[in-house]
């Protein structure tokens, strides 16, 4: 049940976030991204969220102006992947407070952080909502303390 990658694409086809859980060369990444962007942006809203792409399955979902795209293995559970992305959106929603594309653009570091607390090495490793957010805010605090120390010195 390994997730291969997660991409956030804007409706204009711009990459907003990308996390690859396997080693792929930059060139290959660019190729996959380009192909998927055209493929997904051209799909109509009522179409099903799963598509077969090469050896893997692509599951995507649109939230406002952003497409959340994830690649999973053949035997993985598609609906679960869909809900994993929903979980991610929920977390961001809670963290940023009504998340929007701009939040992710300007606070990409935190978006990555939330994602990493949810998924590591392609596996969902924490299914408790509270725990993920607790970790993220705990580390925010740590960072703020660093800043504070910095100012003091």
């Amino acid at each position, binding site marked *: *049940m*390994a997730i291969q990658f997660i991409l956030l694409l804007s409706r204009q086809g711009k*990459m907003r976030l*990308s996390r690859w*859980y*396997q*080693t*792929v*060369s*930059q*060139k290959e990444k660019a190729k996959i991204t380009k192909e998927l962007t055209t493929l997904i942006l051209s799909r109509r809203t*009522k*179409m*099903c*969220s*799963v*598509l*077969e792409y090469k050896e893997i399955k692509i599951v995507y979902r649109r939230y406002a102006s952003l497409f959340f795209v994830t690649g999973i293995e*053949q*035997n993985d*559970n*598609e*609906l*679960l992947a*869909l*809900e*994993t992305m*929903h*979980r991610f959106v929920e977390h961001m929603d809670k963290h940023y407070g009504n998340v929007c594309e701009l939040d992710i*653009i*300007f606070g*990409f*570091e935190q978006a*990555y952080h939330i994602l*990493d607390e949810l998924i*590591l*090495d*392609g*596996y*969902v*490793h*924490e*299914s*408790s*909502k*509270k*725990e993920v957010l607790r*970790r993220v805010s705990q*580390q925010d605090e*740590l*960072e703020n*303390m*660093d*800043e504070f*120390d*910095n100012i003091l010195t």
Partner: protein
Amino acid sequence: MKGLTQFCMDIRNSRDAQEEHKRICTEINTLKGKFTSSTNGSTRKRNVCKLLYIYLLGYNEVKEIGLRESMKLISSSVYSEKKLGYLTLGILLDHENNQTTKEYLDGLLDTTYPYLVKDLQANNDEFNCLAIEFIASSLNVSIDENFVVNPIINDSNENAADWLEITDLVYSFCCSPIHSPVIKKKASLALLCLIKIYPNVILSNNNWILRLLNLIESEDFGVVLSAVPLVDILIHLSPQYVKSVVPMIATLLHDLVVRDKCPIDQYYYDTPAPWLCIELLSLIEKCFLLTEIDRDGQQSPVILVTDIDTNSLGKLRSVVARYIHNASQKIKGQQNRNAQSAILFQVVSLIVFLDASKEAIEGAIHALVLLLDSKETNTRYLSLDALIKLIARSSVGLQPSSISARFEQHLSKIFILLLDKDISVRRKALDLLYTVCNSENYIPIVQKLIEYFPSSDFILKNEIAVKIAVMAENFATDSAWYIQTMLKLLSLGGGNPNGTSYIGDEVWVRIVQIVVNNENLHSPACESIVNLLLSDTDGASGKAGVPENLLKVAAFILGEYGHLIANESDISSLSNQFQLLLSAYFSSSLVTRAMLLSTFFKFTIRFPDEDFVPDVIDLFEAETQSIDVEIQTRACEYLRLATVESNKNLALAVVKPLPAFDRKENPLLTRLGNVNAISNPKRSNSAVNALQIAQEGSHKNNLLGLNEQNRSSNHLGVNSISSSSLASTSRKNSMYQPRRTSNIDNPFEDGNSEQVPLSPNWQSGYQRMRHYDAGIFFENQFIKIVYRTIRDGPRTEYHFTIINNAAKTAGTPITKLRVLDIHSKASKENPSYLASTTKLPDATVIDKTEFVVETKVREILSDSDSPVISMTLTCGGSFNHLALKIPVSLLKTVTGTSTTLEDFKIRWIQIGQQLGQAEGEESIHISPPHRLVSSNIARLMTRIGFTVVYNTPDNEGNILVMSAGIIHTSKSNYGVLITTKSVDAIGKEFLIVIRCTGGGLATLLAQSLREILEDRAT
């Protein structure tokens, strides 16, 4: 981060790409000057953030400077700087195009090793976490299936020691009782990456695996969730642990689903822990799919449903039943529905392995069919997918007809889905129809697909055609029906002269093969073709003309067999056939024209008196000017052959009737695509079915018309394709090829029993079990194990009771108690005894729990083959592994006989006469550690199970004890007579003489008796 925000704003406000580019280039230049050795941490951090942003926008030239700066950040002791350093490194470090995975990893280790070790050893949870996260996210290389045999890193690599150090550090996080769940879960995923890179670490530390398997019983759900993939890879590495893993998962799932023991914050909307449930379900499925290579070189499953104890199996079944029940309820909310359906799909793919009843499978089918009505495209699509999986797999053990018969009522629903809005759904519906197709329902399905064909999507057409062709061929019992259906298909989608066709060439080629090989099809095929050509030509005034593929078949079949129907009516006369073909000639493609030329040539040579022959010659002449080389060549050659009289014999030889095709495999099967990949034994079953029907019924199904032997090999060809596709599926499923190819890699290879070190103090329990039928088996400060033996001929049941010793002293319960394995030393094929755990203990022991081991002696065996039972338990934070030997001995199967002294003497002599002293007798001297008197020996013999026939009174100096008994094995029973005589006067040295009815048995018994009397255990 003001500068970064400003920079982002600038880029967003850029009017065009050029301005954006300019802004970025200026920024890069300024940044380059800003990194000096005196830069303080927070400035460096800010600037690295900008670099990262620029890199993400696609400007790769900042990579080098970014890497350099992130290293500096990592070595900082400020958390936020270190974190950003790792983040940047993770994003910037990439697999270069021309780099092998090993080079990439070596490079990565070179740069990061000192930092990683420092952070892993740091006394700071957060620093540990950062390093672990980095390992998990940057080292997760894609591995190929035989990574165990061909690891990226092995012991001989120069940096193996570094890898080992890192792996060891990460492992210690996983199993340490003092670290928080947050670190544990991350560490187990990091360890997973490291195992993939360097599997030998785990294989050479065999006590690691047991501890790691324990992670799955952790209290923290996050840890369990992360442990699942780790456990998955561990059981692939050492499949012998599968048996002990399944009960753990069963209990977990049962607690979660049936007993509602899920913490509130693990609920996803109203669904308890969907992620964990699905991971666990799929892990069990993987356990069943796991195969190993047995001695015959065959792949065989490591675990079957019969290997699972009834308790766990019951739990799994009730979990499955609960989910299927849930699925038929109304669920509110899309998220909820999705989560529930996701679980249902996972359950469905597991269900067939659980030996589920027909009702259970029908229940699952019913639940899935209900979902087909869903308004959500995703659900419809995935339900179809799950149905395909379920039906393809479930037919293995069931009569295919019983499932599909009940499926009949759902067919109409699937037909409707062929018209779904979404093409993916339409395609899945098609795949499902192909999967459910069998010898009973093929007619409506094929009919429906032919009706559907003209309105279907262009890109689906070829797929549909191939599937129709395969279904029709596999199941048809009526050859006329077959040929009509197939020709109908060709006439519907036969393509146009531009060469574009919806149907691949394989389809028409296959039809031709079948017609040629089937004599009884020759004339019906010709008739159907003529009729179709007529109707197409008649109606062709406005249409594109005769479909290309149909014309190709016509060219071939009419050329060969057209004359068979020539005299039946005017319409089917040869000249009419010629006219029909000729009228289509000029509107067809070049390839078809070339074929038609051959057809005309055949007509001309075979029937030189027909009135159309001059027309053919004219056509040949005209076509010698054709611009197409192929047509020109044919026209020239045919013209010469037809017109020059001396070539007559040669020409007749050229048009000789075709021999039958001997192609055994259906070329279409390779074109099935996805469906073939999931199909598994089911398809081969159906092929066999078709074969059986054909044999029971008539000769008609013999579509290929080859002789019987060839035909069955045709079906076997189908079989082999399916089974190889099964292999490929299971390989895909299991991700890793079964290993066991090399003994060196696997320290757990059968027979290497020396690898199981026994726990200290095992001897006393083992000895006691040999003497007595009840007593204490093992005791230490945590637990006490007592046993009771129930003998029943060759079968012996050992009831063990585990008593928690720590409860009295410390008041702590024993947790995670597991009987892992009974390590039998008997050979695998034709073992001398069988040993299995029939009842498993409870995992948590407050007071006591019981488990039962059953052994069965099949044939004569030596005590030294006795099995080792291995169990693990945790008590008060300490992890314990016990490996204890239990005796499986011939002496445990002894029953007494009521022999008189006279009988004893007679038999004693008989055995001596029949088997001789070499085979039937064994005498040994023993010297027990204590003094024994006559009654001691008699009691001991009685305890073991013998009947004491005679013993001298205790007050006599010379001791003589005669005892007799019967030894039971599954194969046969043996009589045993024993005399024990004292050699000295003080009862410290004896001579035992044993006579047995079984050859060689006496020696083994003597050995056992010596060990018992001298109180030695080996």
